[in-house]
């Protein structure tokens, strides 16, 4: 299987009034086609910066980002992005919000077809009947669902999510995790999910990348062996010994990354 997303030795620093602030340090991440990479790391270590680099919104100082065997130099239409805030446009209905990327990516697609596509996705995430509502009329979880629909409406190869469930309550979050698996089953995409929730990273990820504290390196990579033979992953799986073991490993790695662990990180 080929790596659809490849981040090779990426180093990046922000220029600040107090001199350069190194954020990413020789970072390496590879995600095979169709897989889901979860990225965890201490707050402020450079995770959002990483998403902006993958999306081509910024160029790394050194190193390369490759998508689909092509070097990323600027934003591309085959990428979808979801943010921590749903950032829905208040003057558009939910349906029109979801359609927005199609207006850029497929300007010649007939209106009917766009609507059909958006309606299909909204139904998939349980938002049928809310198409004509304004974002302000929806709950936070519903808005985040709509935002997810918007990020994949144009059938991107690559979906980049920056803590999309971070601001939600635990129940809504678990609900959306399942929605995410349902979406994956019907929409093929390769995904990078930034998160600060270790259970989320194990439940959704095929691999979990633990980044070190700033400047971020790839400190640890966990291959997730989710206790589930076939079909969509079930939430109960999180409470098995296998998952407990994986979570313990991740927790330990995060503590090392935060510099709170007695032993030194191994790299």
């Amino acid at each position, binding site marked *: 299987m080929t790596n659809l997303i490849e981040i090779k030795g990426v180093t990046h620093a922000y220029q600040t009034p107090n001199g350069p602030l190194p954020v990413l340090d020789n970072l390496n991440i590879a995600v095979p086609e169709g897989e889901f990479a979860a990225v965890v790391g201490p707050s402020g270590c450079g995770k959002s910066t990483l998403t902006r680099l993958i999306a081509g919104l910024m160029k790394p100082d050194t190193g390369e980002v490759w998508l689909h065997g092509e070097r990323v130099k600027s934003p591309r*239409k085959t990428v979808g*992005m979801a943010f921590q805030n749903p950032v829905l446009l208040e003057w558009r209905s939910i349906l029109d919000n979801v359609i927005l*990327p199609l207006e850029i990516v497929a300007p010649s697609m007939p209106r009917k077809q766009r609507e059909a596509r958006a309606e299909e996705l909204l139904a998939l995430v349980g938002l049928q009947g809310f198409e004509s509502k304004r974002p302000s009329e929806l709950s936070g979880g519903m808005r985040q669902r709509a935002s997810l629909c918007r990020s994949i409406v144009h059938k991107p190869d690559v979906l980049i999510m920056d803590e999309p469930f971070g601001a939600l309550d635990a129940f809504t979050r678990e609900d959306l995790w399942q929605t995410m698996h349902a979406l994956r089953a019907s929409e093929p995409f390769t995904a990078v999910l930034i998160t600060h929730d270790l259970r989320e990273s194990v439940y959704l990820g095929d691999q979990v990348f633990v980044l070190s504290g700033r400047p971020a390196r790839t400190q640890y990579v966990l291959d997730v062996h989710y206790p589930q033979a076939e079909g969509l992953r079930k939430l109960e799986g999180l409470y098995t010994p296998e998952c407990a073991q994986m979570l313990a490993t991740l927790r330990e790695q995060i503590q090392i990354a935060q510099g709170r662990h007695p032993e030194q990180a191994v790299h």
Partner: protein
Amino acid sequence: MKTFQKIAVPIVAIALFLAVWEFLVWVNGWPNYVMASPSDLPEAYIRFWNLFVSGGWQTLWRTVAGLGLAVLFGTALGMVMGFSRVARDALYPLLVGFNAIPKATLVPVLALLFIGQHNFNTVLMAFLISFFPIAVSVGIGLSTLEPEYRDILRSLGASRFTIFRKIALPKTLPEFFGALKVSVTLAFIGTNLVEIISPHGRGLGALFLSGQTNSNYPLMFAVLIALAVLGIVLYYAVVALEKIFAGWAERPHG
């Protein structure tokens, strides 16, 4: 019931206001050269109706023309300031300084610059006095746009213009209309200022002036009321436009 209330309450308030006014004039026994009473006004309106119509029209179109220019220029200036830090740093002090100048002092300056161009001077003043809030609100609206909003479309490779048209522009509309409500009142004041101060003015302001020179006090008060009515009409015209174009910004529950 709701709409009835919406219309009835302001009408009752206005009627009450007129009643109190009439009462005060009557109780204090003010002669009409100190303070005309509402009952003096209908006569003034009937006698000078033609002048009210033509003057009102003059005042109205020149205010609207000045405001239109202010919208065009203010929006353009706001865009420049919103997109460029350098432009913002360069223009802001200039604008604040210009805005601080009492506009009455500009009337003679303009009159000398463009001698006899009364219409032009009036429109120019309405424009000069009213573009500032628009420029500032558009500038601030654009420069404070959260980067994530831009990134929604930028991550798809959309052009700057597309991002402006689909996101930045609609997002600043509520601020724009907030400023337009201030500007419409200012433009109206600007128009009247020139009409009253200019020696050979036109419009309602000039009618006020002629009331003064002829010691026709009821006429002066009638003009004031007419100005108030015109001001209300202009203001609510902007409110109506706001409802159409930025109604989404209104939260259903306050």
